[in-house]
């Protein structure tokens, strides 16, 4: 399959969608709406490929004799029970599918990320050092914002929340605006390279 075909497609569709922003014409709108629909459906297939890869991985691991195999059975059981309950039993409130979502998936996912509070606390003591002037400024601002954003800060003294608010709305906002413009220029440059066929890394060398 010649490399030329994907590159031609990228340029055609990329230019079409780019020019459609500037030239509005009736028949263009129709084609534009269709292309958006196609992209949504094709993208869905890429997500399914990821899911099937995971299923294949755990199927392979479940056959191995090691004690890890048990955990792959757990994953496979999770996948196929959710799939079965969802497609057969429906997903309305009160269905088994929504019960598992509310009482297994959400609590597990929420607890997994709540571990971060513990990791932040232990890193605060063992990891975060004012090893340079810049790091010192970072920690001071962090402390000020943390105090300013909770009621206790207000109790300690009136100006802490005001200063925290001022920092967020002016110096921090200005630095973030600089970063945004930098990232914006970078993504426009990358998108231009992709549309004009100069960038090929996404196709693999």
């Amino acid at each position, binding site marked *: *399959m010649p490399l030329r*075909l*994907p*590159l031609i*497609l*990228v340029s055609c*569709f990329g230019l079409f*969608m*780019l020019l*459609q922003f500037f030239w509005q014409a009736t028949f263009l709108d129709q084609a534009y709406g*269709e292309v958006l629909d*196609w*992209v*949504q*459906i*094709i993208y*869905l297939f*890429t997500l*399914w*490929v990821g*899911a099937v890869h995971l299923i294949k991985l755990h199927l392979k691991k479940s056959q191995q004799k090691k004690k890890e195999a048990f955990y792959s059975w*757990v*994953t496979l059981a999770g*996948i196929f029970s*959710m*799939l079965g309950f*969802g*497609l057969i039993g429906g*997903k309305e409130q009160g269905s088994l*599918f929504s019960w598992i979502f509310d*009482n*297994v998936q959400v*609590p*597990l*996912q*929420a*607890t*997994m990320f709540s*571990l*971060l*509070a513990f990791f*932040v606390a232990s890193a605060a003591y063992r990891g975060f050092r004012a090893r340079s002037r810049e790091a010192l400024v970072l*920690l001071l*601002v*962090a402390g000020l914002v943390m105090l300013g954003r909770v009621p206790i800060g207000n109790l300690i003294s009136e100006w802490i929340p005001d200063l925290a608010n001022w920092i967020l709305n002016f*110096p*921090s906002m*200005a*630095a*973030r*605006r*600089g*970063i945004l*413009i*930098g990232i914006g*220029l970078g*993504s*426009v440059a990358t998108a*231009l390279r*992709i549309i004009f066929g100069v960038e090929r890394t996404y196709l693999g060398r």
Partner: protein
Amino acid sequence: MDLSTTVAAILTLFIFSFLYRDNPFYKFAEHLLVGVSVGYFLVISIDNVLIPKLSEPLLKRQDWPVLVPLVAGALILTRLVPGWSNWSQVSLALVIGVGAGVAIPATLQAQILTQMKASMFSLEAPPGSSAALYLFERSVILLGLTSVLAYFFFSKEHKGWLGSYSKLGTYFLMIFFGATFGYTVMSRLSLLIGRVQFLLGDWIGLLN
């Protein structure tokens, strides 16, 4: 203390056991989560996207243009077959091309031009506000914005005036990262507060 909250509470404690050390309970809970989330995604994407967008238009209403995305989608599935995967590049090219095409004007307008326009303010204070504070705030914005852009300037050595100006940019960056650090700690603690409120409140019922 009903069945549903007990199941959720036990799984919560399984995950917390990782804090002691990586152990079978944690591995079980984590692998269950991976499995259930993939199963959940497949149901939502089939029931809420595939059926209304593909199978019904094709089977019920025979509207044939839907065949195009279906075939393009099928080409993506060739990634699962070892020898054929470069056929998927045709469909990937379409998604990447369209993504790049719509991103350029949107990024240019919303992330660059509008942000520039918002920085082109007058230094004359609006009536009724203190001129000194207004002028100080405007200069902080201009200094912060331009010094951060100087920091991310790679065509000239950071020496002389450019060196010190980009050093100023470093300190503005530290202020932004400090604020982000503080807010991130706030976020992480809120997640733990939510779980403790669930365990002590909804499960054991200690909190009124």
